[in-house]
C-alpha cells in the first residue's frame, strides 16, 4: 500500500482539492469543543484536537432522520402510503476520524448490515464514505482502546491513516479505496526519519495507555452468573439515568421510530433512543421488563461487555474512546465496571 508525505502547510490545499471532488467532513471547533460536520471552508478543519465530544456515529446514523414521508390528504390517491426520500449518497471523505471511532463502525456494522437484513441508509452511507483517520500521538487519561482490542494507530475501519510526524503528515493507504484517494494528490518528499518517528510515536502512545482490564476475564464468565451478580447494585447506585453515556457513545446505536404530522403532511422519523430510559421497554399494557434503574444500567454494560461478544464473537462493543467516562455527571466509569465484572463485587475497604 502506498504512503505519501504531506507537509503541514500543504494540508489546507489538499483539503480544498478534496472538497472540489467529494463532500468533505471533518472535526470543526464549535467554540467549546470539536464536532464532526460537513466542511464549507478548507480552513475550518482543525486536526489539532483530542477527540470530538459526540462520536461521529451521526454521520452514518443521524440523531434524527426522516425515514419516509407521506400525505394524509384524502384527495390524494397516495394518501397514507409511505414514500422513500431522495438522499445524497455522493462520495464523501471523512477526515480526521480517530482509530477508535473508525473501529466502532466496524463493530456497528454487524448490527446494521447482516446477511439477511440490511439497513439501507447505514449501508449506503458506509459505502459512499472514505475514512481518513488520524493516529493518536497523545491519548488522554480516559482512553483505553488497547484494553478492548484497538490501538492509537489501529487501522481497522480506516481507508487511510494519517500520522502527524511534526512538520507534516504521513498518509498510509489501508484499503484500495484509500489508495484511490491518495493517488489523486501530489505528495512532498518523505523525510528520511519519518518511518522511525512513526514507530517511536506509536510505541510511546501505546505505552501511555496500559491495560485497564482483561476482557477475557468477564467475557468468559457465564451470562446468567454475571446477570445476577450483586455488582449491579453498586454500579447503579449513583446513576441518574440521564442517558448521556449512550448519547456520546459510538457503539450505542439504539433508536426509536415515531411519526410526526403537521396538517396533512407527515414523516416517519427515526430518533436516537437509549436503554437507560424506562419508556424504551415499556409495554402498552403497563408491564415493563426493565422498569427498574438497576435493570437498565445492567443492560447497558451487559450489552456492551457480554451480550454483544457472545452474540457475534467479535469482541466487546466498546472501543475505549472514554467519552462516557468523561461525560457521566456522576463519574460512572466503564473501566471500573469491567473490573467489577472480572472480579465480582469488591466493596471499597
Amino acid at each position, binding site marked *: 500500500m502506498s504512503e505519501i508525505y504531506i507537509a503541514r502547510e500543504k494540508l489546507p490545499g489538499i483539503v480544498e482539492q478534496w472538497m472540489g471532488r467529494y463532500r468533505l467532513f471533518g472535526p470543526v471547533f464549535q467554540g467549546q469543543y470539536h464536532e464532526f460536520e460537513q466542511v464549507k471552508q478548507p480552513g475550518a478543519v482543525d486536526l489539532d484536537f483530542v477527540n470530538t465530544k459526540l462520536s461521529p456515529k451521526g454521520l452514518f446514523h443521524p440523531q434524527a432522520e426522516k425515514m419516509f414521508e407521506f400525505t394524509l390528504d384524502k384527495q390524494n390517491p397516495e394518501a397514507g402510503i409511505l414514500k422513500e426520500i431522495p438522499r445524497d449518497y455522493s462520495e464523501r471523505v471523512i477526515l480526521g476520524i480517530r482509530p477508535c471511532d473508525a473501529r466502532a463502525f466496524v463493530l456497528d456494522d454487524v448490527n446494521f448490515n447482516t446477511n439477511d437484513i*440490511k439497513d439501507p441508509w447505514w449501508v449506503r452511507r458506509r459505502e459512499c464514505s472514505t475514512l481518513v483517520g488520524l493516529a493518536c500521538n497523545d491519548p488522554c487519561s480516559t482512553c483505553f482502546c488497547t484494553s478492548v482490542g484497538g490501538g492509537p494507530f489501529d487501522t481497522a475501519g480506516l481507508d487511510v491513516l494519517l500520522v502527524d510526524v511534526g512538520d507534516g503528515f504521513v498518509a498510509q493507504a489501508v484499503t484500495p479505496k484509500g489508495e484511490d484517494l491518495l493517488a489523486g494528490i501530489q505528495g512532498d518528499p518523505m523525510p528520511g526519519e519519518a518511518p522511525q518517528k512513526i514507530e517511536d510515536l506509536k510505541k510511546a502512545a501505546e505505552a501511555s495507555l496500559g491495560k485497564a482490564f482483561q476482557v477475557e476475564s468477564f467475557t468468559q464468565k457465564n451470562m446468567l452468573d454475571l446477570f445476577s451478580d450483586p455488582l449491579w447494585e453498586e454500579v447503579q447506585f449513583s446513576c441518574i439515568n440521564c442517558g448521556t453515556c449512550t448519547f456520546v457513545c459510538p457503539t450505542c446505536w439504539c433508536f426509536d421510530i415515531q411519526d410526526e404530522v403537521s396538517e396533512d403532511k407527515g414523516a416517519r422519523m427515526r430518533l436516537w433512543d437509549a436503554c437507560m430510559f424506562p419508556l424504551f421497554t*415499556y409495554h402498552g399494557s403497563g408491564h415493563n421488563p426493565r422498569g427498574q434503574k438497576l435493570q437498565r444500567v445492567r443492560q447497558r454494560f451487559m450489552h456492551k461487555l457480554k451480550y454483544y461478544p457472545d452474540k457475534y464473537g467479535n469482541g466487546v462493543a466498546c472501543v475505549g474512546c472514554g467519552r462516557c467516562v468523561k461525560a457521566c455527571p456522576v463519574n460512572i466509569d466503564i473501566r471500573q465496571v469491567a473490573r467489577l465484572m472480572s472480579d465480582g463485587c469488591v466493596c471499597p475497604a
Partner: protein
Amino acid sequence: MHNPYLPYPVRIESVVTESEDRNQKTFKLVFLNPEDEARFRYMPGQFAELSVAGQGEIPIGIASSPTEKGFIMFTVNKVGKVSSHLHNMQEGDIMGVRGPLGNWYPWDTLEGKNVVIIGGGFAFTTLRSSIVYMLDPENRSKYGNIDVVYGARMPGLLLYKEELAAWEQRDDINMHITVDGTTDPNWKYNVGFVPTVTKEKAPSADNAYAIICGPPIMIKFTLPVLTELGFPPDRIISSLEMRMKCGIGICGRCNIGTEYVCKDGPVFTLEKLATLPNEY
C-alpha cells in the same frame, strides 16, 4: 436494496368485532400490489408490523394461515395510540404492513408429532393460524393428534367463535374450550382455568410438543402441569412479547440477554429460555 422499514400498502377489506367487550377487532387486509403479496410469504408463529401513517407501527401476530390465500388477518387488542386508532379505521381505508417478521413454530420438527396447543385470552392469534394450517387437507396427515386447550374469562371474550364451534364438530382435532366462569345456562363446554383444564384433559406427552401462548399468569401455572404430564423443556414452545420498533433486530430494544425477540424469536423453547436472563 430492499428497504426492510418500508411497509407494503394494504387496504382494509373487513373489520370484525371479536369480543363482547369490543376490545378485540379482527382486520382482514389485502395487498394493493400483487408483487408485495408474493413477497409476504409467512409461516404460523410469525408477526408483522401494522403501520398507520401518522400514528406509528405495532407488532401483531399473523392470525391468518399461509394456506388462506388472498388476504392476511390480524386480531388487535385496543391498548394505546396505534391500536386505538386502528380500531376506528374502516373497510376500504389504506394502511401498511411490514414483514413477515421473526421466527415461527418449528413446523419441520413438529412433523410426525402430536401437537398440544394451549392458549389464553386474546393471545390466540398465531395459534389460530397454526390450527388452520395443520387442519388444511394438504397438511393434516403430517401431524398426529391435535389437542387444543383455549380459555377466556367468559364466553363473550373468546376469539373466532364460529371457527371454534366448527372445530368442535371435527374428529381430527380435540377441542377443550373453557371459560373462567359463566352465567349462561346453555354453555356447552368447560368451566375452569386453563391450567386446571389442561390437567383434567391430560393430553399425552408421548411423541408430543406443546405450544403455549397467553397471559403470563396462565403460563406460569400451566408450565408445572405440562412438566407433570411429562413434557421436557425442549418440547414446550412459547411466543414472547417485548416492546418493539424495528422488528428486524436493529433498533436494540427487544433483547433478552443475547437474543432479540423480534428476530431471534418471538418463538422460543423453554429449554432456550432457561439459558437467558429472566427479564421479560
